[in-house]
């Protein structure tokens, strides 16, 4: 561990754009997938509940 300062850490020896561009995209991809998973899940739950009610009211 030889960063010394935050400045040195953020500049990544002059490769900040490439290193942080990679890690930021990894984070963005994970965040997008997790958001997508939850949205789809919630919709499926609502649909399953609606289906149950429909079955109950028609029975």
């Amino acid at each position, binding site marked *: *561990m*030889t*960063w010394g300062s935050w400045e040195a*850490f953020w500049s*990544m*020896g*002059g*490769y900040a*754009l*490439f*290193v942080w*561009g*990679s*890690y930021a*995209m*990894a984070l963005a*991809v*994970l965040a*997008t*997938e*997790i958001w*997508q*998973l939850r949205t*789809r*899940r919630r919709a*499926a*739950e609502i*649909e*399953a*509940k609606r*289906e*149950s009610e429909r*079955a109950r009211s028609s029975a």
Partner: protein
Amino acid sequence: MTTTTAPRFNLFWFSSPQTFYPLAGRLIPWFIGLAVVLGLVGLYISFLAAPTDATQGESYRIIFIHVPAAWMSMFLYVVMAFWAALGLAFNTRLSSMMATAIAPTGALMTFLALWTGSLWGRPTWGAYWVWDARLTSELILLFLYLGFIALQAAIDDRRRADKAGAVLAIIGVINVPIIYFSVKWWNTLHQGASVSVKGSTMATTMLWGMLIMALAFWMYSIAAVLYRVRTIILERERRADWVRELVARERLK
């Protein structure tokens, strides 16, 4: 005489969506926990423990996401094709749902491998992209994932969508060894494998960082796929009695 006996343990027992649904629900928190812990350790090694590379400086730190993402992109494809083939051969509903659930995560891993590779290629090779065998075959992998997703989405009949997707997934498997061996078979700009059965050419700390990050990506992928397959089960089986029962008992979660 009628008795209700607990079923003996066998794999077919879990191959029913009804039994797999609660099992997957119980497993997900464990995989999320493992992914978070391994991810934090991996990030610590990537940025604090691992030294500066002698030739590439700090740009090499991209390796800690590039290689795990690339490994997962290929591994997930093989697993997807495996489930798709099983679904095609035995007509088991859950197998096809597994294949469908894996595709988006696999596509994202492939995209991430290409993106980080491009950002790594620029400082090391001087170009974001070259039509090199390794890069091109990885790009084809992305198109295979997207093709699988699009094909399944285009067919209304679920069974037919599963079958058509399975055929595409199985044919596409041929691309995985091409990606893996491309650096040996062709004279590529991309470097050869850093890790093989014969050992590693990397410094120990860097290697550990990469392996731990790969495990974190693996655990994350399992959690994401299990979460998605539960949603798919719910979508497809919403009219089934067992789903209604779960709704009535408020045990859908």
